């Protein structure tokens, strides 16, 4: 495979030092979030990856896993505006983005902004609302702007949408189409906490006055960190590794994975490669490193790719999940 080679000159040592300094707020954030969220390290890490790489997150997990609390805590720790929208079948796009209201006094229409005008938006149970509402939100996510009437409003940065899905109830839901799911940078599947973590959760909830979360990070710090994340060094070998993983979903037979071919209806889009690269950089940043290693790619691979691989009916009949497909690929693609 002929791939473009780059000869960028990067002072990794200097970058490492800078990242050590600039990523210090990650620890502060983790401590603050940890005041209300016990365990769920995986979820908090994914929230931070989304935050640092300017990508939206789809959280999937059964009710009661602190999905809402996590994003509330994150918003509270960052000193940013937070809003929550409970998606229901009768929700309208105007309930989300806002609408024009006639002002009798002024004798004109004025704009009433919707809850999407916030830094952190929690779209709870996104699959409960019909497609028109979902697409209104996803449009805002993609364009980072909202048009109400004739006016277009840019959304404040940082703008992070966290959508939740309940995997156990499918009745009366409107599953997100593949094209729309693809707009979420990560799809994180949240599991139950460990036994000892749950014990701590019980104790924490028995407290009369829970520890308040104080803002420890400014929005500007996040925006600055986002720029630094883009600068994290990614070697060509890592780029090839990412490409191999993504291409293995499209042409598994080229990677001695011919048995996966009948299971995959469509492979990951270039958006997967982009997001895998950015998420790997963000993960390296969280780990306070100025360069990406294969472990970073592997750490975010499932979250970036699980919603970007289409499975065939045969795969579904055999109970093969996208996670199984990704595991097979990771086990076969050579690590640089």
């Amino acid at each position, binding site marked *: 495979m002929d791939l473009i080679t780059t000869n960028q000159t990067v002072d990794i040592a200097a970058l*490492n030092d800078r990242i050590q300094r600039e990523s210090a707020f990650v620890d502060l954030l983790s401590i603050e979030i940890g005041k209300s969220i016990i365990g769920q390290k995986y979820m908090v890490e994914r929230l931070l990856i989304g935050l640092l790489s300017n990508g939206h997150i789809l959280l999937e997990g059964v009710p009661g896993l602190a999905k809402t609390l996590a994003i509330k805590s994150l918003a509270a720790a960052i000193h940013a505006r937070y809003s929550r929208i409970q998606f229901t079948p009768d929700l309208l796009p105007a309930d989300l983005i806002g609408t024009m209201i006639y002002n009798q006094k002024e004798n004109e229409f004025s704009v009433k902004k919707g809850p999407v005008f916030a830094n952190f938006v929690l779209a709870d149970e996104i699959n409960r609302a019909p497609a028109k509402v979902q697409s209104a939100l996803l449009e805002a996510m993609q364009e980072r702007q909202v048009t109400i009437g004739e006016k277009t409003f840019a959304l404040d940065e940082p703008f992070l949408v966290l959508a939740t899905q309940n995997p156990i109830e499918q009745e009366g839901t409107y599953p997100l189409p593949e094209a729309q799911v693809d707009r979420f940078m990560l799809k994180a599947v949240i599991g139950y906490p460990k036994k000892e973590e749950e014990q701590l959760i019980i104790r924490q909830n028995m407290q009369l006055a829970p520890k308040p979360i104080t803002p420890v990070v400014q929005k500007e710090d996040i925006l600055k960190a986002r720029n630094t994340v883009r600068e994290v*060094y990614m070697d060509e*070998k890592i780029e090839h590794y990412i490409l191999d993983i993504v291409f293995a979903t499209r042409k598994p037979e080229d990677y001695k*994975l011919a048995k996966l071919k009948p299971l995959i209806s469509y492979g990951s889009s270039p958006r997967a490669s982009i997001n895998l690269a950015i998420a790997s950089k963000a993960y390296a940043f969280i780990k306070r*490193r100025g360069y990406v290693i*294969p*472990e970073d790619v592997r750490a975010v691979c499932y979250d970036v790719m699980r919603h970007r691989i289409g499975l065939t009916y045969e795969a579904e009949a*055999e109970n093969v999940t996208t996670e199984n497909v990704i595991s097979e690929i990771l*086990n076969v693609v050579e690590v640089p």
Partner: protein
Amino acid sequence: MKRLAGKLIEQCRNWVRISFSKMRLHFVAVVLLFPLVSPAVAQEISVELRPDSTHILIGDFLRATLQVKFPASEKVILSPVRDTLGQMELVKASGVDTSTSAETITLTQTYTVSAYDSGNFRLGPQRIFFAGKGGETDTLLTDVVMIAVSTVPVDTTRAIKPIKQPLQVPYTWQEFAPFILLALLLIAAMAILIYYIRKRKRRKPAVIERPKPKDPPHIWARKELKKLEDEKLWQRDEVKQYYSRLTDILRMYLEYRYGWFALESTTEQISEEISVRNIPVDAANKLLAILKGGDMVKFARRLPLPDENDSAIKRAYEFVEMTEQKEIIKEDNTGK
């Protein structure tokens, strides 16, 4: 003699009046002549045709039981019944039930009869054949029973109603049972078929097939390390290439020596794997130092000192030496 005959006629009349009050006159003669058939046999063989009722509605079914008792020494045959039993239409005749006790045999047969006109109908007589004294076949007749068949009484006080539609006979389980059974069998067969197909196709973990060297792993590794040394890559400023080759040789050696796919594993995964394998701690530390140092060169553009490059390959040789599979030479106890 005249008195005796008159008495006998009077007795017969009484008996006829009681049992066959509605019997037509020409049957009376048969009954009167009945004792003349074979008084001796009549004492030994008894026949009885007993209906459930002597009155039925038109079209109703009536059950009549024929019972013949005779000594075991006698040979009795029941006359086959065709379409009618006397004047009654035969609907169904059961099989002949034979029961034996001490010296008597009892034959029992049940007839289901009906009549499709109103009036009085004769039920019987039914013929029973038996071997007579001289060996010739003799005949015995059952009593004749008159069955009154009446129509459904019409209530003339009520208005005339249209003819009723045929009754819908409710479906019974017996009717459905064969189909249900067939469907269940088909479902079971399909389930078994699907199970076996799925079992056959059950996903097996990816198996990477690579040609194995002819030499034992440690000899192969030493040869490869020597080749790498001779190529003098780092001396020609190809440090990254040097470390890539070095780490690949060690990964391949792990695969050949321990049979796990180290080429597809990250440094972190190798670190986890060697902790559960029987690898000496010193050797494991040497390997991890090379891999971690290699990662820094490969992914973080680190430029190690010449001494470090030299010591890396020395460590690789040492690791191979410490982990090579030793030949166990058994001592010869005979002293030869």
